[in-house]
């Protein structure tokens, strides 16, 4: 179609709306990384000795590791000594009452669509708002506490719940896991901790909103969710960053522990600054996310909508240990311009009769490269395990790439593993059909792409589905029905 390229480019050239910088006094520590920096971060956070020891162990291990190069990514060399590892708005780390929070911070989160004042909060969503290295405010804490649910920043958790943190932190993603997990374990600054006691259903969605603001810094947050037996929580994560010409590193770790009969749903709308059309700037999003379904019939479901970041390296995974436990991964990854994404999941079946499902929808445009990488491993004791994987790629244009790297490793004969994959270009006849009914070319593309991603978007909680659709420029999806 002659004008199809033009339509796509217009569609994809949309400005990054979240690229503003908040003018706020920020405290930063000196550039670079060494043991003194690790000690300084720990001191800033007034941490107990055991936490510092963990950080130092991680740092020393990190020194022995190499940057991973196996992904289908072209990553410019990162100078880890040229990064500021801690930056905090100078108004103090945490605020019990709204009156103490710098109005400029409130305005920032307002502008991002995350109102933190009690009367304006999103109904049914408790938010932990993290700016650069610190948590600014956590909402609805009192309501959640009535049910025994702990929802707080990681800094508070280290101080107030040392037993839980010592027991679970690093239990799913140890600092030896990989290069970026080790780095995170050494320098992580804040993040969220969420604990759902036995038999409790979280009465609202819990969410963390991550905002990078300061220049020259990296963000290294750490999230830990523990769902005790028979509990349930739905957790959301969103993120944005200012528009800058330099790259910024975001190396997070998320760990989830799911006990027997418990269920955790973890949803991400990843919208870090992707860089400009020429590929200048943008966030390097190198994240380790893993959940351990430890108890029988426990369930963990990852849903991710990835639209941002210059480079994404991320594989939310499930270790299915408990008998009959279930892991799910639903992903939409969209890359445009010169973005690169290498993302997927690992489903490690250890227990008998464990089940997993992978649905991945890649969308590539411009000169971007979009890879799905998946591992399904069925261990010798996972009799009767089942996996179904569906991996679709949609190409918008002829200069982008879509790649699929599935690995299946089965050690037990009674397992059933299915894999389906498709690659398609956007269908000109579909666009013409929609345009013939009066839709603009841009709206037609958005509708077709939205339809393609629908199976995943439907998995998101309502508020996030709306944001995700907006992100995919699906102004029409979800308007009816």
């Amino acid at each position, binding site marked *: 179609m002659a004008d199809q390229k033009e339509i796509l480019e217009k569609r994809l050239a949309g400005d990054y709306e979240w690229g503003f910088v908040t003018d706020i006094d920020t405290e930063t520590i000196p550039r670079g990384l060494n043991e003194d920096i690790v000690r300084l971060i720990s001191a800033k956070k007034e941490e107990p000795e055991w936490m510092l020891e963990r950080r130092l162990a991680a740092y020393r291990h990190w020194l022995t590791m190499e940057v991973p190069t196996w992904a289908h990514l072209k990553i410019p060399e990162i100078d880890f000594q040229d990064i500021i590892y801690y930056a905090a708005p100078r108004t103090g780390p945490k605020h019990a009452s709204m009156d103490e929070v710098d109005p400029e911070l409130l305005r920032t989160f307002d502008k991002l669509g995350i109102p933190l004042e009690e009367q304006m909060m999103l109904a049914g969503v408790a938010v932990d708002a993290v700016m650069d290295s610190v948590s600014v405010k956590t909402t609805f804490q009192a309501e959640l506490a009535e049910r025994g649910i702990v929802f707080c920043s990681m800094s508070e958790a280290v101080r107030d719940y040392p037993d839980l943190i010592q027991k679970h932190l690093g239990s799913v993603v140890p600092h030896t896991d990989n290069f970026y997990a080790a780095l995170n374990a050494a320098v992580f600054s804040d993040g969220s901790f969420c604990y759902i006691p036995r038999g409790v259903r979280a009465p609202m969605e819990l969410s963390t909103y991550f905002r990078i603001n300061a220049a020259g810094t990296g963000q290294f947050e750490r999230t830990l969710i523990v769902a005790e037996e028979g509990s349930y929580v739905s957790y959301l994560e969103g993120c944005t960053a200012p528009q800058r010409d330099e790259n910024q590193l975001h190396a997070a770790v998320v760990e989830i522990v799911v006990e027997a009969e418990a269920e955790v749903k973890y949803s991400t709308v990843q919208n870090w600054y992707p860089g400009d059309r020429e590929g200048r700037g943008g966030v390097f999003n190198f994240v380790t996310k893993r959940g351990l379904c430890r108890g029988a019939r426990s369930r963990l479901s990852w849903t991710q909508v990835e639209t941002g970041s210059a480079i994404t390296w991320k594989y939310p995974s499930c270790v299915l240990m408990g008998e009959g436990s279930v892991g799910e991964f639903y992903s939409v990854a969209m890359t445009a311009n010169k973005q690169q994404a290498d993302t997927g999941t690992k489903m490690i079946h250890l227990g008998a009769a464990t089940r997993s499902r992978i649905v991945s929808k890649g969308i590539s445009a411009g000169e971007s490269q979009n890879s799905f990488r998946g591992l399904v491993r069925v261990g010798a004791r996972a009799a009767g395990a089942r996996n179904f994987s569906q991996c679709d790629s949609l190409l918008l244009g002829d200069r982008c790439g879509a790649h699929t790297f599935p690995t299946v490793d089965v050690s037990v004969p009674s397992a059933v593993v299915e894999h389906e994959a498709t690659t398609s270009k956007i269908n000109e006849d579909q666009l013409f059909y*929609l*345009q013939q*009914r*009066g839709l603009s070319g841009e*709206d037609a593309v958005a509708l077709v792409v939205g*339809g393609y991603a629908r199976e995943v978007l439907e998995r998101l909680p309502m508020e996030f589905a709306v944001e995700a659709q907006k992100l995919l420029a699906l102004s029409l999806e979800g*308007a009816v*029905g």
Partner: protein
Amino acid sequence: MLSIKDLHASVGGREAGEAGRGDGAEREILRGINLEVRAGEVHAIMGPNGSGKSTLASVLAGNPRFKVTSGEVLFEERDLLALSVEERAREGLFLGFQYPVEIPGVTMANFMKAAVAERRKALGLQTLTASEFLAMTREKAALVGLAPAMISRAVNEGFSGGEKKKNEIFQMAMLAPRLAVLDETDSGLDIDALRVVGEGVTALRRKDNAIVLITHYQRLLDYIVPDYVHVLAGGRIVLSGGRDLALRLEAEGYDGIV
């Protein structure tokens, strides 16, 4: 309403890099079409395979696969060929597709809501409320015998051949076009579906709109009685007449006439 003067159009000759279609050679399909359609009229265009009937429909709708090489088309006094595909649609030109495409994951409701909103905007009308829209879909679906539940299905996905054609007429009813070009809406329909579709289209006839029916067979014309019948052959209209021409074609075949 529609005035076509010496219209020539060709297919192929696509630029390098847009591989996959045609052999690169340009081939002329329409070789000087002349046609006048006034408000309130129904024109049937018949003709053998490969005569250019569907190309004419595609060119009127602005399908970029075809290139207009010369000629003029006025639609409501405007230069139709200068308008984009969607502008033509918003101005009230509707194409009933011969092969309606499936669009997975996109519900009929979302699709039609957007399309109706665009059409109403062009007419200077306010957007319908959700309940008005729902009431309208029920009424129009009933007109062509589609279950109202189809509004929550994906566009044409899993629709039978007959449902797809009914869905085209449903969309026509929703959009209330000034000019509807129906491209072989009768193909693939059984006798009962043909009657439902034919009666549905007839119910949409008004003094201020017009319909161009493209068909191989005259049986559709039992339900949608045309004012004029044209025979297209070799990219030109070679014969025009009234309703009786269609009957003659059926009796004698194109060979006897063209």
